[in-house]
C-alpha cells in the first residue's frame, strides 16, 4: 500500500486502511495479472507478428518490459503503460504553466516537464485582436502581455525536433490566469477527459485541470479578454496593479477558492484521480460538516474523504449492475 504522509492516530489509521481496502476490492479484478516490473518477460505468442510499443524492448528473442506498469494490448501492438510517471504530453492537451523567460518572439514556460515549453508570439492573440503579422513593435511590447512569473493556460500544438513542446493560446479561454491559486499535484492523477475547464457556477469559481499536474483555481472570468485588460492597464499606472487585483474579488468567492483548493490538496495527498465530481464531493462534504477551511487539511478530514469516496464508488458499481 502506498505511503500517505499524514499523522494519524490509531483509529484513524484503521479507518483509512478499511476505506482503501474497499476501494481496492472494487477494482482489483481488472488486469491484476498484467502488471509487470522492469525486466519482466511479457507473454506473447511467437507466431504472431507483434508490434513492440513504448516501454518494451527485445532481449534474447523475448519481449521484456523496461518500465513498471500494466501491459496493454491493441490488436498486435503490445506496450507497457506506467502508472506513475513523469508528465507525457500529447497534442491537444490543456497545460497550465508559469513564464520563466521572455525571449525573442517567444515566451518560455515551466510546465513540470523535462524541458521548458515554448509559446510563440504568433500563437498568441494580439491585444487589439486584429490578425496581422507580428512586427518589431509587437515584439518590444511582449512584456505587456505576459511577464515573468505569470501563470498562463495554453494548449499543446506540436512537438519540436528536440522533444520540447510548442504551445498555442489562440482561443479566448486561454491566456493569463489571475485572481486565483496554482496547485501542483502529481501529473498521473489528472486523466485525459473531454473537458478540462470547469466553471463552478454557484460559487463563481473557475477550475482548470492542467494535464501536466498544475491545477488552477480562481475567480471566474467570462472572457479572458486581453483587450479590455490592456486598456485598463494603460489608463492606470503599473504600481497600482497588484492592489487592484486583490480589491475586486469578494470575500465569499475567495473562501470558495480556498475551499476548492484544499479539496484538491486532500485528494492529491490521498492519491485519488482528480475529476470534477470527486472534487465537488470533497467540497460539499467539508461545507456540510461546517469545517473551517484550514481544518480541511487535518488528518480527520482526509479519513472522511477516503471513506466517502469508497462509498460513492461502491454505489456506482452497484448501480451499473
Amino acid at each position, binding site marked *: 500500500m502506498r505511503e500517505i504522509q499524514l499523522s494519524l492516530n490509531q483509529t484513524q489509521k484503521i479507518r483509512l486502511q478499511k476505506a482503501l481496502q474497499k476501494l481496492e476490492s472494487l477494482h482489483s479484478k481488472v488486469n491484476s495479472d498484467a502488471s509487470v516490473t522492469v525486466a519482466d518477460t511479457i507473454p506473447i505468442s511467437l507466431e504472431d507478428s507483434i508490434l513492440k510499443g513504448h516501454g518494451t524492448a527485445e532481449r534474447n528473442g523475448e519481449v521484456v518490459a523496461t518500465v513498471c506498469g500494466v501491459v496493454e494490448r491493441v490488436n498486435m501492438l503490445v506496450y507497457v503503460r506506467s502508472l506513475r510517471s513523469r508528465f507525457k504530453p500529447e497534442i491537444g492537451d490543456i497545460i497550465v504553466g508559469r513564464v520563466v523567460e521572455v525571449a525573442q518572439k517567444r515566451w518560455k514556460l515551466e510546465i513540470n516537464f523535462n524541458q521548458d515549453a515554448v509559446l510563440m508570439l504568433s500563437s498568441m492573440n494580439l491585444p487589439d485582436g486584429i490578425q496581422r503579422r507580428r512586427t518589431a513593435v509587437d515584439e518590444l511590447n511582449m512584456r505587456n502581455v505576459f511577464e515573468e512569473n505569470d501563470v498562463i493556460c495554453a*494548449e499543446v500544438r506540436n512537438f519540436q525536433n528536440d522533444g520540447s513542446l510548442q504551445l498555442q493560446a489562440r482561443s479566448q479561454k486561454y491566456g493569463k490566469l489571475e485572481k486565483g491559486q496554482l496547485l501542483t499535484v502529481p501529473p498521473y492523477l489528472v486523466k485525459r477527459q473531454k473537458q478540462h475547464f470547469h466553471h463552478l457556477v454557484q460559487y463563481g469559481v473557475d477550475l482548470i485541470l492542467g494535464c501536466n499536474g498544475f491545477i488552477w483555481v480562481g475567480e471566474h472570468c467570462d472572457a479572458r479578454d486581453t483587450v479590455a485588460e490592456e486598456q485598463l492597464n494603460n489608463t492606470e499606472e503599473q504600481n497600482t496593479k497588484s492592489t487592484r487585483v486583490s480589491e475586486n474579488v469578494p470575500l465569499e468567492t475567495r473562501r470558495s477558492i480556498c475551499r476548492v483548493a484544499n479539496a484538491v490538496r486532500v485528494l492529491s495527498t490521498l492519491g485519488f484521480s482528480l475529476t470534477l465530481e470527486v472534487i465537488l464531493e470533497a467540497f460539499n462534504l467539508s461545507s456540510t460538516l461546517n469545517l473551517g477551511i484550514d481544518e480541511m487539511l487535518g488528518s480527520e478530514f482526509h479519513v472522511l474523504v477516503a471513506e466517502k469516496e469508497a462509498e460513492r464508488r461502491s454505489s456506482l458499481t452497484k448501480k451499473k449492475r
Partner: protein
Amino acid sequence: MSGRAGRRGIDDRGICILMVDEKLEPPTAKMMLKGSADSLNSAFHLSYNMLLNQMRCEDGDPENLLRNSFYQFQADRAIPDLEKQVKVLEEERDSMIIEEEDNLKNYYDLIQQYKSLKKDVCDIVFSPKYCLPFLQAGRIVCLQCTGINESSPSFSIEDKVTWGVIINFDRVKSFSEDDASRKPEDSNYTVDVLTRCVVSRDGIAKKNIKIVPLKESGEPLVVSVSISEITSLSSARLYLSKDLLPLEVRENTLKKVLEILSRNPTGLPLDPEGDMKIQSNSYKKAVRRIEALEHLFEKHEIANLPLSSKNSKYVTSDDVVELKGKVACEISSADELTLTELMFNGVLKDIKVEEMISLLSCFVWQEKLQDAAKPREELDLLFSQLQDTARRVAKLQLECKVQIDVENFVSSFRPDIMEAVYAWAKGSKFYEIMEITQVFEGSLIRAIRRLEEVLQQLIQAAKSIGETELEAKFEEAVSKIKRDIVFAASLYL
C-alpha cells in the same frame, strides 16, 4: 479555356496556337475559348481523420465545421429552389381528386409489396445456379413484353406476358470485370428465344425489336433476352427442327406453342421447389414472408461516423481519443481507418520493404485501369489481406448505419500499379517501369509522390506508438522511392 503558355519563371507572355483537326462549328469554338468557367461545386466530405483531430482538442466541434463549410452554404442556397418545386408538386397533388383515397392507397401499397416479393422470388429462382440446367433448347418460357412503361404504375397484379421457345443460351462477357475471378454461377447469361416480335426501323438504320403477345400481329423472330426478363419456365418442351431460318418453320413452331397453351392455360410452370430443387433458405423465407418490409430510415451523416469510431476502439465512450485514434489522426492522405487497422494487425511488419511499398500503392491509386496485369503471387496475397481488412472496416461502418456500400468500398483499392511500384522500389529506371504498365506517366508520378506523403505520415504514426522498427522501415522505404525524375522539382534543370 485554361492553361499557361511559356516557361515558368522565365516567360511572362506566351502564344497559344489552336489547331483543329475536325470540323468545328464557330459557336462551339467560341464557347471553348470564351465560355464561362465550370461551376464550382463543393465536394466536401467529413472524413474520420478530420473528426478525430477535432475530438483531440477540447473545443472541437465537428458539427460547427460542417455548418460553416462551403458545401453547407451551397446546400442552403439551393433550398429556395427546392421549396418552390415542393410547392408546385403539392399544388398538383391537391388538385388531383381521387375517390376513396385511403383504400386506394392501401391497395397500392399492397400491390407494391406483392411485386417486390415476387421479384425476390424470381431473382432466386432465376439465379444461374438453379436455372441453367433447365434452359434447354425447346423449353417453353414466359417472357415479359417490351414496352411496359416503368414510370406509370400499374394497378393490376398481372404483367403483360407472352410465350416463346428457348433456342440457346450464352454467357455474357462483361468488359469491366476480371473474367478469371468470376465463377460461372455468378456471371450474366442471355437466352435466345423464338417469339413474336414487331420490328420497327428507327431513323438511321437502327432496328427496334419489341416483343408482343403471340396472338398479335408480328413476325416470329429469335431475340436475345437477359434472364431477368423471363418470368417463368414451363415444364413442356418442344421438338425443334434443326433449321430455323425459313419463315414457315418459325411460324409452325409458334403455332405449336399456341396449341400447347390452349390445352394447358397455365402453361405448365416448373415448380421451383419440386422440379428445380431449390433448397436455399433465403428462397423459403421470401416465399413465406407476409409482413411488410422494414425500411431503413436514414440518420444524419455525422451522428453515425462517431459511433463507428467508438465501436472500433478509436475513441472511448467519453469521446477521449485513444491510441488507435491518435494514429488515425496522423494519416490524412489515404484511407485512415483501413491503414490503421492494417498497421495494428502487424501486416506491415513482417514483409519486405519493397512489398510494403507496393501494398501501400493500392491506397493512392484511385483510377480504374482496363486490362491491368495481375501482380505476382506474393503481392497478390498481400492485396487479398488488404481487401479483407477493408471489408471488415466497411462492415463495421455498415453496422453503425453509415451509408456505405461494402463491395464498392473494397473495390476502390486497386492493385493496378503494384508491379510498377515494386520495380521502382527495387531500383529500376523510369522508362523500364513505363514498359510494365500502360498508365499515363503523369498519373504514375503523382501516385508515387502521394505514396511518399503517406509514408511520411506513417513515420509520425509509428513514432507515436513507439514502434521503432516499423519507423525505421518506413524511413528506408522513403529513401528507396525518393529519387530521380519522379521527385525532381522542375524539369528545367
